[in-house]
């Protein structure tokens, strides 16, 4: 006979309805059937049981009498141990003793005793309740607020207030209270009749006790076998920012966060332990409260839209032991984000800051006098470089030009204007960020409401990002055996990106290239531009672009998840989660009627692009946590996951506007509609995963995981891949020979090996998809269809095998905590968009080809240098050194030249070289007068750029190109010091990177050629007969011929040390906050990017202006970086 049974509602997703979200939740129905047997008994019994589980008592009753005891296991689970002392008493007496202080009662039906929950007794108990109060301090005697106090084995609890005080109603004074607080050892206190408790909680080593979130569960840091680093909200808050990635920067060794643009919202790139993949994404997988974030709708990373203030912790999973549970998509590391939840006791938190950003660095460009001088020199030199053209009068004397431009030059030929475009097009930008949260609840149910408003202005005029976000969370223990909850986050982000556009429409380029002799506006109100001076390339005034071109991204995203956690057996839990991530983005683009090149010819152009990404996942898993005995523990997880993402996009647009008023708000005004477009794409995942952790004596820990992953993205026979891992850790400090060591307080050695995968290649790559085109037949549109992609039915998973060995060492009671890891990763079957001979009609094919390796060392140390009552000083230092190497590329190991292509190939993937290698000619300098004859054999003259003829064949061509550097750093890290004096704290946070080069392509147009636009001031150091030892060619009009190609001159050392953050904070003392009826009050001021030391000549060495995989460090005019001055306040009520 069953007293409980469960049925699982299951279905196949083939049926369209069952594909729907709702169909994915498993329903567990529990029913209790009671069997009652007839018969009466009157029996005596004897019991002497101290602190015995109540179930044991029942069993003894059954043994000594003929009663059956029926009960709900979950109800008695709250009772715990009881004491019964009875000599020849009745069953009733025994039970009365048992349930004296318990919310249970019993009824006897003939020979059956039925145990029931007793609501009236609960109330009675409440009436009889007594008060316990007290004070909780830390071990230095400071009051501890927020300590959680719970009644052991029963319901009810509270938290301490700001002064560390608490008061609690208890059923009687014989219970035990459990005091717990993050960072402190949990302590149990038996009241034993006392009604006042004063207690000092012992601080625990944070690194050991802290709970770390891992895939499908959590673990104490000390129990981990993998390389997992948790970053808590307090650490993130040290660097206030609208962007969570920027807050993460430097917090975890081996996690390289590059903020590649000064644009609000950042254009940030995160790479963990080196790049594994050549064509698929190298970004980590982001999982927010269990919901995988699908890739962003634009080039923006999906977590950019999160409100950093919502985040409780970010857990970075680095090695295969940790990431293999995410199998298919774990190869680049996984970042698990847990958001803040509600907590007991009402709390209101307000966190606000305001900031001013200014341009941190300006580039040296020609001013008006210098520009004219360069023009004059160029004109003189034209005769040398193009004698035929010069003789034919092709070149205009700048002096004559100046005379013909009275609005720009006075009668003496002196420029009327000397515009600093970097000043005119930038600004001091004011930003603000407001956060308000409400949390509350009881021991059973907690809730939280989190609100955010951020308004970040960029230093380029008009660039702006606004975010409104709201989040609601609820967690409830609705039944002793069931917990349900969920969260819903809504973000609305609107940003105006002014730095889009190509060529002379690129604002960041025109900051440099707009002529200083041109005013922002002429006296008649018309915009100045390079077109006002003859023979210039048609670049537009950057201020005009900023104001009259609109590129606004409106993104609304909802991230939601609901879960139900059911306790099936004492040690077995089932959790079902349903997650959604819906992103709607509208890109509004309008380019005004007076913007040359872009839209003047078409009388204004407007486009509205809508993209809707719809993602859902259903994950269901069992967790089994069994303490077999004191020496053996077993944790296991087994589950299944379904994921689905689809995306629809559409575009409508028009040209030919009667004026600029309408922008994108009334496309119907446009006289020429653009052909509308729309598209659909979809991918699905189906996965099975499992993990077993086995711990012996808290010393030897074993983890085995496996994920069997299926993706729609691969060829029909290769959908599924298997991703196993195994790990072992040894807590040597728990061994007898170290247990009592005064030096070593913690030592853990761990190692792991596992396989993870990568599938981020986009959709339909294995298929021979066609694409459409437009023919014009008889003056009307005729639809065309032609080839697009070259099918690869054998397309399969890219796999990365990763070996990791590491140790964690705590010295002197963990005042010094060291963590170090060595890893070796080898990626095989690389998913490569491999070029094919274009004679096939195609340019590339997605295939699995070759392998590469990454090996590296990560080291971090945290040290409490000084610990005293009033003064504390702690230091954190971390470094990550990574070396990547291409091991093989297809059958013939042929080189591959990835994008961005700029004049020539910019990058090379070559066996034996690092990924992200730059490729080009070697610039030796300029040809000297003495070398005229030799120069002539290269079609050059003294004063021309001299490239190295590497193969000595007498010609400069592709064969002379070599590897020039690499965009990925050799090493990078952080040095951070925090000083605390009483209530003041000061953090000095430095960031460094070395071994990375920058390919600064802007030299092409701002130095290699002159006479088309303004130039870098470096052209003043151009070759002259008296200045022959220079890298820079003699000035001449570009029409007279010049040399430019990707070469070593463009490659610069990008190593740097940055003062990332300087933060001074003050926590008001409890005495003050108490008067203000606050729990906590903190004010702080910060300067971010407060210095930068680098040899790099551009705005900032943390840069890329291309979205391609290995474009890190490649720039062609970037958004300048700000220095940010910030003032904030944090209030908790």
């Amino acid at each position: 006979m069953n007293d409980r049974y469960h049925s699982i509602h299951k279905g196949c997703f083939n049926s369209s309805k069952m594909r729907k979200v709702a169909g994915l939740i498993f329903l567990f129905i529990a029913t209790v059937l009671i069997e009652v047997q007839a018969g009466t008994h009157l029996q005596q019994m004897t019991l002497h049981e101290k602190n015995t589980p109540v179930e044991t008592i029942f069993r003894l009753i059954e043994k000594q009498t003929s009663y059956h005891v029926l009960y709900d296991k979950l109800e008695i689970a709250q009772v715990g141990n009881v004491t019964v002392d009875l000599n020849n008493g009745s069953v009733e007496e025994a039970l009365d003793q048992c349930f004296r202080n318990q919310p249970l009662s019993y009824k006897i039906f003939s020979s059956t005793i039925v145990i029931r929950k007793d609501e009236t007794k609960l109330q009675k108990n409440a009436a009889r309740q007594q008060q316990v109060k007290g004070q909780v301090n830390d071990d230095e005697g400071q009051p501890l607020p927020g300590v959680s106090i719970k009644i052991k084995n029963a319901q009810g609890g509270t938290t301490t207030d700001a002064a560390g005080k608490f008061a609690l109603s208890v059923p009687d004074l014989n219970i035990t209270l459990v005091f717990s607080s993050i960072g402190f050892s949990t302590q149990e206190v038996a009241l034993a009749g006392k009604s006042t408790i004063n207690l000092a909680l012992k601080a625990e080593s944070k690194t050991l006790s802290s709970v770390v979130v891992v895939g499908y569960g959590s673990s104490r840091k000390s129990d981990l076998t993998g390389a997992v680093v948790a970053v808590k909200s307090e650490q993130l808050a040290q660097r206030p920012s609208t962007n969570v990635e920027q807050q993460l920067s430097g917090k975890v060794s081996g996690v390289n966060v590059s903020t590649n643009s000064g644009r609000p919202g950042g254009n940030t790139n995160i790479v963990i332990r080196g790049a594994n993949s050549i064509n698929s994404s190298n970004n980590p997988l982001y999982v927010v409260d269990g919901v995988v974030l699908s890739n962003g709708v634009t080039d923006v990373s999906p977590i950019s839209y999160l409100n950093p203030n919502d985040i409780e912790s970010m857990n970075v999973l680095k090695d295969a032991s940790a990431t293999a549970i995410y199998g298919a998509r774990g190869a680049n590391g996984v970042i698990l984000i847990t958001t803040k939840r509600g907590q007991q006791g009402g709390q209101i938190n307000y966190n606000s800051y305001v900031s001013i950003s200014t341009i941190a660095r300006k580039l040296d460009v020609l001013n008006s006098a210098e520009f004219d001088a360069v023009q004059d020199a160029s004109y003189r030199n034209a005769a040398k470089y193009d004698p035929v053209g010069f003789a034919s009068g092709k070149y205009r004397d700048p002096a004559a030009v100046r005379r013909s431009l009275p609005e720009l030059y006075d009668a003496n030929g002196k420029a009327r204007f000397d515009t600093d475009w970097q000043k005119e097009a930038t600004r001091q930008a004011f930003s603000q960020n407001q956060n308000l949260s409400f949390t509350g609840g009881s021991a059973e149910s907690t809730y939280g409401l989190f609100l955010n408003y951020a308004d970040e202005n960029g230093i380029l005029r008009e660039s702006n990002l606004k975010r409104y976000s709201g989040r609601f969370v609820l967690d409830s223990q609705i039944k002793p055996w069931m917990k349900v909850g969920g969260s819903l986050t809504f973000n609305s982000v609107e940003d105006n990106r002014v730095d889009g556009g190509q060529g002379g429409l690129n604002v960041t380029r025109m900051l440099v290239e707009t002529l200083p002799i041109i005013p922002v506006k002429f006296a008649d109100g018309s915009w100045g531009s390079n077109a006002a001076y003859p023979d210039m390339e048609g670049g537009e005034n950057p201020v005009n672009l900023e104001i009259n071109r609109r590129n606004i991204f409106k993104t609304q995203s909802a991230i939601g998840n609901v879960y139900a956690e059911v306790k099936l057996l004492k040690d077995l839990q089932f959790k079902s989660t349903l997650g959604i991530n819906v992103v709607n983005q509208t890109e509004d683009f309008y380019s005004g009627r007076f913007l040359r090149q872009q839209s003047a010819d078409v009388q204004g152009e407007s486009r509205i692009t809508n993209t809707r990404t719809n993602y859902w996942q259903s994950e269901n898993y069992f967790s089994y946590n069994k303490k077999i005995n004191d020496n053996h523990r077993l944790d296991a997880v087994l589950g299944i996951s379904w994921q689905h993402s689809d995306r629809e996009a559409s575009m409508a647009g028009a040209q030919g506007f009667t004026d600029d008023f309408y922008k994108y708000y009334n496309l119907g005004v446009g006289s020429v509609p653009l052909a509308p477009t729309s598209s659909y794409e979809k991918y699905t995942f189906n996965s099975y995963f499992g993990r077993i952790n086995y711990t012996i004596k808290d010393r030897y820990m074993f983890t085995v995981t496996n994920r069997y992953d299926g993706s729609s993205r691969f060829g029909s026979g290769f959908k599924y891949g298997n991703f196993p891992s195994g790990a072992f850790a040894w807590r040597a400090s728990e061994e007898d020979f170290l247990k009592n060591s005064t030096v070593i307080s913690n030592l853990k050695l761990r190692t792991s090996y596992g396989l993870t995968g990568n599938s981020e290649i986009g959709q339909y790559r294995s298929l021979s998809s066609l694409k459409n085109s437009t023919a014009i037949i008889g003056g009307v549109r005729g639809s065309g269809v032609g080839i697009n992609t070259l099918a690869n039915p054998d397309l399969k998973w890219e796999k990365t095998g990763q070996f990791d060995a590491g140790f964690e060492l705590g010295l002197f009671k963990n005042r010094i905590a060291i963590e170090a890891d060595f890893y070796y990763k080898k990626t095989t079957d690389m998913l490569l968009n491999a070029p094919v001979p274009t004679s096939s009609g195609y340019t590339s094919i997605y295939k699995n080809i070759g392998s590469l390796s990454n090996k590296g060392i990560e080291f971090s140390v945290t040290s409490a240098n000084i610990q005293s009552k009033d003064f504390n000083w702690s230091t954190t230092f971390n470094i990550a050194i990574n070396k990547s190497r291409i091991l093989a590329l297809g059958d013939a190991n042929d080189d591959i030249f990835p994008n961005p292509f700029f004049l020539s190939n910019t990058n090379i993937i070559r066996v034996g070289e690092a990924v992200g290698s730059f490729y080009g000619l070697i610039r030796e300098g300029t040809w000297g007068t003495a070398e005229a004859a030799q120069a002539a054999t290269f079609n050059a003259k003294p004063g021309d750029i001299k490239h190295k003829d590497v193969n000595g064949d007498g010609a400069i061509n592709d064969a002379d190109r070599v590897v020039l550097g690499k965009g990925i750093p050799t090493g990078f890290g952080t040095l951070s010091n925090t000083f605390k004096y009483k209530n003041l704290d000061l953090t000095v946070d430095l960031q460094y990177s070395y071994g990375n080069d920058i390919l600064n392509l802007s030299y092409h147009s701002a130095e290699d050629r002159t006479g088309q636009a303004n130039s870098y001031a470096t052209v003043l150091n151009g070759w002259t007969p008296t200045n022959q030892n220079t890298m820079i060619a003699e000035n001449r009009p570009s029409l007279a011929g010049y040399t430019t190609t990707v070469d070593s001159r463009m490659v610069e050392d990008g190593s740097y040390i940055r003062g990332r953050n300087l933060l001074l904070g003050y926590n008001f003392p409890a005495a003050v906050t108490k008067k203000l009826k606050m729990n906590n009050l903190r004010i702080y001021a910060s300067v971010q990017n407060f210095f930068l030391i680098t040899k790099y000549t551009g705005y900032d060495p943390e840069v890329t202006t291309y979205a391609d995989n290995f474009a890190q460090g490649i720039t062609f005019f970037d958004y300048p970086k700000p220095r940010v001055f910030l003032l904030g306040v944090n209030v908790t009520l």
Partner: protein
Amino acid sequence: MKYQSKYNPLFFILLLVIPGAFSGCKKYLDEDNRSNYTQENYFQTADQAQAAINNLYASLRTITDGTGTYAESPYMMLEFPTGLANTEVGQSQYNNTLRTLSANSDNNYFYVWWTNSYNAIANANLAIERIPGINMDAATKKRMLGEAAFFRAFYYFHLVRIYGDVPLLLKPINASSPELYPERAPLASVYDAIVSDLTTAETSGLPTADVSGKLNVGAVKSLLASVYLTMAGYPLQKKENYQKAADKANEVITSGAYRLFPTYAGLRNKANKNLGEFIFQSQYQVGINTSSVNQAFLPRARKITKFSDEVGAVTPAPEFYNSYEAGDLRTQEQQFFFSNYVSVLSGQTVNFGSQYIFKFFDTEAATTAQSDLNWTFIRYPEVLLIYAEASNEAGGPTQAAYDAVNLIRTRAQLPNLTGLSQATFRQAIWREKYHELAYENKVWFDMIRTRQVYNLANGTFDNFVGHALPAGQVLTDKYLLFAIPTREINNNKKLTQNAGW
């Protein structure tokens, strides 16, 4: 048994059952692409076949569309090394190095011509393989196959003249085809395929004229005439093809479908699209696709039109302008050239101080900044001149040959040619071709076909190798072929590079 309060063992069974239950849902991981067909499921209907053919027409625009860093148009590649074209765009490295004969195989034009041509060929190959399987009207099917064959020949004809021996691919390529990495096929076999395709197209039931811009049989015959003429010259030198060229050209002439416009303004009149002397054109239409050719020829930044960028990418070498016979109407203001214009912005006459190309000037676009003048690939005067040259080579100048060339000279208000020897007639035709078809991508191919180059100073013809361009650079035999693009050689080790590159 006294009591029962155990949990159902069903749980543990379910643990095993749940994953099993879902593994049956194989379709869940199927690719679901609703935006595009794949090759496998396409080519089922006549309309689908038509769309595949339409795509070939669309591909013609790649020859004039801007590509690369400075929106260089591929057709410019064939103009700069002739020495007839200068430029006012200093920053365009690809143009400048061709103009100064200092290009290397990295020059993007080589890649763009190669890639775009082979892409169109792959589309034609797919159509030719798949359309026969479609259940549709037989006549329409035959015509479509003829169109696809024409396009394949059209692109191979460009390839073989630009690069010499090229891979000859006549079937669709997939990832496992050995032809994914092809070798260069001998030039003669490429020409054979071109002739075969054009012969197919010729008999596929194409109309004699089609004002909508679709292929007509005259275009096929004209191209075939040009192919025969080229085969008769360098490097194949199949002299017997002169007669074939003359015959094909004559079929076009005698068809009566084409006539010269009475004035050169007819070349710039949009009402004449696909009519009169325009035998085969790339189509443009404002609102669908506009042309940038017009803008490229405008004198740089003289503010005579509403175009925000008057590019000055291709300007005539003064030496060439001066090489026209005195009194040639084509050299008069606003015929083929112009040296001033009344600005549509200011209403003032702007004097340029030198000649610019007016041949393709779109008067309407001057005020709208939107040009949809078609780009012409085959123009009737070319057919007339092919006939004159080919028949002269086949047997000396005939009256019909004189008639053909004099039709062109009459429009230019030049005296008729009479009484010339075969050799002098030959050079007279060549000169006429330079003057009539300049900047239409014809001159370069004639230079390498004849290996003779017009000496602008004295009106005679120099050998190609050793001829000095007006700016002083000297042609070498390296330039008889352009380079196989670097990127293509990098990706296909079976390719060899042309001599000198």
